[in-house]
């Protein structure tokens, strides 16, 4: 064996080398898993489910019917093979992480089904294809698995109010498909003929390109056909959307990677530094016998590079193994199988290894620059120690009355304290980062429901409400007033930090009812006036105006010049006649708009929707009324919106996300706890002499462990405080830099994200106490006194 090989040190210090390798492996594995799970939960399913767009494209108008000229233009293109009529409804397919992915159930005419299946490389493998005019549905096997459906089962809105919101009438699964892509096929005629689907289904054409001309057709649809009035769904657009979603994920992922990288680099750097100090004599001797400083730096860096390579490889292998297990146990059974080897994740884990190598190189160059071989050989001290001595002499200590206090060691070892506290704080921030983002967003969107605090709503599902139901509601003893209203979502609100646009509701009501509701909600105008009867005017809340930069007099709903990006398409333009004032307390903010019912009823365009009922309860009767509405009125034809059921829906959405994030963050927490506890353990074992002498002087092991635990409590507590203060500063920045300018706010005192800051320090404390306790159980003061320890 070459004694000067970079491997020699590791061969003779297996324990330390293994620990560092394991630490790096854990960090790499943790980041790989975090990003891998996030990708497979939030991004890849979008692609997996909608990959049928690689076989054909869809074209549809924003509202109404597709302009025949557009269809003619597409047909005339030489790259286009087929243009088929299609209609579709959208459902949400929940993936393994509980996140909904939108998916189209495409309505095809019987004669076109074979062509679409052949083009998609899909064939029926069980049951049959939907018969024309029936409510049959054929689904790819993976989708049926994800939706937990078998042949003969029905898809009902009542079973999943949000996922199946567009399933106005139940669809029955009659066939299972299998092939290259996932498809859901229903009868065109059924959607077209069913009264409840007429307003819900989207109509357009399905475009199939000639073989080898897919890219040209994609370009045609995206660049020539697509306009504010014509929507296209193509493979290239899907990929662009995925890239945007991935960019959003990376916006969150990159700070996470940075935090973990810095923390791990600090930990490995601290361990390397301790090892370096122990090897001073070795370096001094090697330098004295003629090995240059450059050679020493190279050797030390190569040693670390070897560890990094081993740790990185091991970490990736472990992560791939765990991803494979997760795939087999969770994702594949839910119809979302994936490749455990995630190439896209690799660029995010490599920086840890490079940072560790880079830091070692930097530290080695810095230390060797001051190296004095004679000082090392003669006194066993590098200038590093001399510097420490000098600085200690400069800062004359004042003796403490309690030298065995938990803070004494770290008061005298500020560098170590900074590393431990800094690394722990960074890890705490890493584990709670996502939850702070999610919870602030969840908080900020709460006012979406505030209008339901005073009223409840019974909405028509496809068909008009039955007179008997209306009479039944009116007759209920808890009802104060029933207001006929049309419900619209003419605007959307952007909720930071990375949220989509949320539709905000508008009630189309009579002038009398509008005045009543304005008083009921305690709203007052900040500018302008309420909409005049039978006018295309709308009064909007201050928050929406602020969020979208809208003022009195602005026009919304212009199809060619939308008032904001991704603004909902309206049948005709509306003019903002007034803006309500902001609520004094943001938690009372009401994001409801009002417009004229008469306008909607009388307008020739398709403003007219089925009337809903806004129900005002008698004082103190809201809970009774809501309970009755939810149990007696909600059904296939009637949707009931109460504050309670909508709040529960919000909560379930948030908690399913929170659950996914908890899983992800627990991975980081485990890595963090092990890394930091390992570092703490090393710091403690460096203090064998101190602990041995204290033991000889009569301190019991329990007292010694207690002292170390108190010290760890101090560093973990300090780290928690630093992280929480840092978190608070970031939250204030987010609130006033991001949320307030958008007109929304979140609650600083929501306890959930703050609770997520606790696992890391608690785990560090527990693991450190265990490891140190175990190490001290072998402590032999005599061995130390005799110099054998």
């Amino acid at each position, binding site marked *: 064996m070459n004694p000067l090989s970079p491997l020699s040190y590791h061969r003779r210090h297996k324990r330390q080398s293994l620990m560092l390798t394991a630490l790096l492996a854990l960090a790499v594995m943790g980041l790989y898993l975090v990003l891998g799970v996030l990708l497979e939960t939030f991004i890849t399913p979008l692609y997996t489910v909608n990959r049928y767009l690689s076989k054909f494209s869809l074209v549809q108008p924003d509202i109404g019917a597709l302009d025949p000229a557009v269809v003619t233009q597409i047909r005339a293109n030489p790259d286009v093979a087929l243009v088929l009529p299609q209609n579709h409804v959208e459902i949400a397919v929940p993936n393994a992480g509980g996140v909904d992915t939108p998916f189209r159930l495409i309505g095809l005419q019987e004669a076109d089904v074979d062509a679409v299946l052949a083009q998609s490389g899909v064939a029926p493998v069980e049951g049959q294809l939907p018969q024309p005019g029936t409510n049959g549905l054929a689904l790819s096997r993976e989708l049926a698995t994800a939706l937990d459906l078998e042949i003969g089962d029905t898809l009902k809105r009542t079973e999943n109010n949000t996922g199946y919101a567009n399933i106005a009438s139940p669809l029955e699964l009659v066939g299972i498909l299998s092939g290259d892509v996932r498809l859901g096929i229903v009868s065109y005629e059924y959607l077209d003929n069913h009264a409840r689907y007429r307003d819900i289904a989207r109509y357009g054409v399905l475009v199939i390109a000639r073989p080898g001309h897919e890219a040209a057709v994609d370009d045609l649809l995206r660049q020539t056909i697509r306009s504010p009035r014509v929507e296209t769904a193509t493979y290239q657009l899907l990929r662009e959307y995925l890239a945007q979603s991935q960019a959003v994920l990376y916006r969150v992922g990159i700070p996470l990677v940075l935090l973990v990288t810095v923390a791990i680099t600090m930990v490995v750097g601290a361990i390397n530094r301790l090892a370096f100090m122990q090897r001073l004599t070795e370096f001094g001797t090697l330098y004295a016998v003629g090995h240059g400083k450059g050679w020493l730096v190279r050797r030390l860096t190569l040693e670390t590079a070897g560890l990094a390579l081993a740790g990185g490889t091991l970490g990736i292998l472990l992560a791939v193994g765990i991803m494979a297990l997760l795939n087999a146990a969770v994702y594949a059974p839910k119809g979302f199988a994936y490749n455990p080897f995630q190439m896209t994740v690799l660029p995010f884990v490599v920086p840890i290894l490079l940072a560790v190598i880079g830091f070692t190189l930097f530290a080695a160059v810095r230390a060797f620059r001051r190296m004095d071989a004679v000082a090392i050989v003669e006194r066993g001290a590098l200038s590093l120690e001399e510097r420490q*001595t000098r600085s*200690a*002499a400069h800062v*004359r*200590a*004042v*003796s*403490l*009355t*309690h*030298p*065995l206090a938990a803070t*004494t*060691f770290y008061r*005298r*070892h500020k560098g170590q304290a900074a590393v431990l506290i800094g690394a722990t704080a960074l890890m705490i921030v890493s584990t709670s980062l996502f939850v702070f983002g999610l919870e602030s967003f969840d908080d900020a969107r709460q006012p979406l429901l505030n209008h339901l605090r005073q009223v409840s709503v019974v909405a028509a599902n496809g068909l008009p409400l039955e007179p008997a139901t209306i009479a039944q509601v009116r007759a209920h003893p808890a009802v104060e007033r029933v207001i006929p209203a049309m419900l619209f979502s003419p605007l959307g609100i952007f909720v930071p930090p990375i949220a989509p646009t949320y539709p905000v509701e508008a009630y189309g009501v009579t002038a009398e009812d509008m005045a009543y509701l304005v008083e009921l909600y305690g709203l007052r105008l900040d500018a302008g006036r309420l909409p005049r009867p039978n006018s295309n005017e709308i009064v909007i809340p201050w928050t929406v105006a602020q969020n979208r930069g809208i003022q009195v007099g602005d026009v919304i709903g212009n199809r060619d010049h939308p008032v904001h990006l991704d603004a909902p398409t309206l049948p005709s333009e509306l003019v903002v006649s007034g803006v309500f004032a902001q609520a004094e307390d943001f938690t009372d903010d009401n994001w409801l708009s009002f417009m004229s019912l008469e306008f909607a009823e009388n307008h020739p365009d398709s403003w007219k929707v089925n009337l809903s009922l806004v129900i005002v309860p008698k004082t103190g009767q809201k809970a009774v009324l809501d309970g009755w509405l939810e149990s007696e009125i909600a059904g296939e034809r009637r949707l009931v919106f109460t504050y309670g059921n909508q709040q529960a829906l919000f909560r379930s959405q948030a908690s399913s996300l929170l659950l996914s994030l908890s899983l992800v963050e627990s991975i980081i927490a485990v890595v963090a706890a092990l890394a930091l506890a390992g570092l703490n353990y090393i710091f403690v074992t460096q203090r064998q*002499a*101190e602990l*041995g*002498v*204290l*033991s*000889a*002087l*009569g*301190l*019991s092991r*329990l007292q010694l462990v207690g002292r170390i635990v108190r010290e760890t409590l101090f560093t973990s507590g300090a780290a928690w405080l630093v992280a929480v203060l840092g978190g608070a500063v970031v939250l204030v920045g987010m609130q006033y830099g991001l949320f307030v300018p958008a007109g929304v706010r979140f609650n600083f005192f929501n306890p959930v994200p703050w609770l997520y800051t606790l696992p890391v320090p608690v785990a560090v404390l527990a693991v450190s106490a265990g490891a140190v306790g175990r190490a001290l159980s072998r402590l032999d*003061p*005599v061995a*130390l*006194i*005799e*110099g054998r320890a």
Partner: protein
Amino acid sequence: MLQGENLRLAYRDGDATVDAVHDVSMAVADHQFIGILGPSGSGKSSLLYLLSGLRKPTGGEVYLDDRAYGKMSDRERVALRRREFGFVFQQHFLINYLTAQENVMVAAPVQDKAHAAQARALLADLGLGEKLHRFPYELSGGERQRVAIARAMIHRPRIIFADEPTGLLDRHTGLQVIALLRAYRDQGSLIAVTHNPEILSEADLIIRMRDGQIVAMEDRVARQTKEAAA
């Protein structure tokens, strides 16, 4: 009174069993200065560890006022060390991030202002009044050993165990250190282990050891008679 009866300390060295201490009996009266003398490997330090409870004997028993160490729990033995004994080792074993005063305070029964004042007074008595707040690496070898002595005395132990306390010091400093330890005899007993007979000139009893056994015991009267005869 501290008593050791038929003490034995054996350990495994490969396949062989080595007796570091073999069938040793001895007693230490209050305020007595006992010196244990012998060459390296004679078992004198091992005997000190047995008497101070740092090691459990493989045979025999140690008693302090008729309380047998063997019947005490680990916790009781640790508490006994903390309360009744003080230690000075060949190396100072001071904690390098604590000042001189703090190092002394480490052995105080209670860490409070009164004991801090006592530590300062003790260090001043030992000539370190100006260096209370110095760290060990800022002190000379003799100064460090004096801090270690103050640490051994702060809680007024009944017995101070000193294991080669001058081993790493020059002769002059060594004699200073031994004088300081000897002065403690007014308050408690002193058991000093050394291979240097010079520092045991004032000992009440010198125990000579070789190969783990006591080969001779000489009290001061016997030594003085011997010296006069010589």
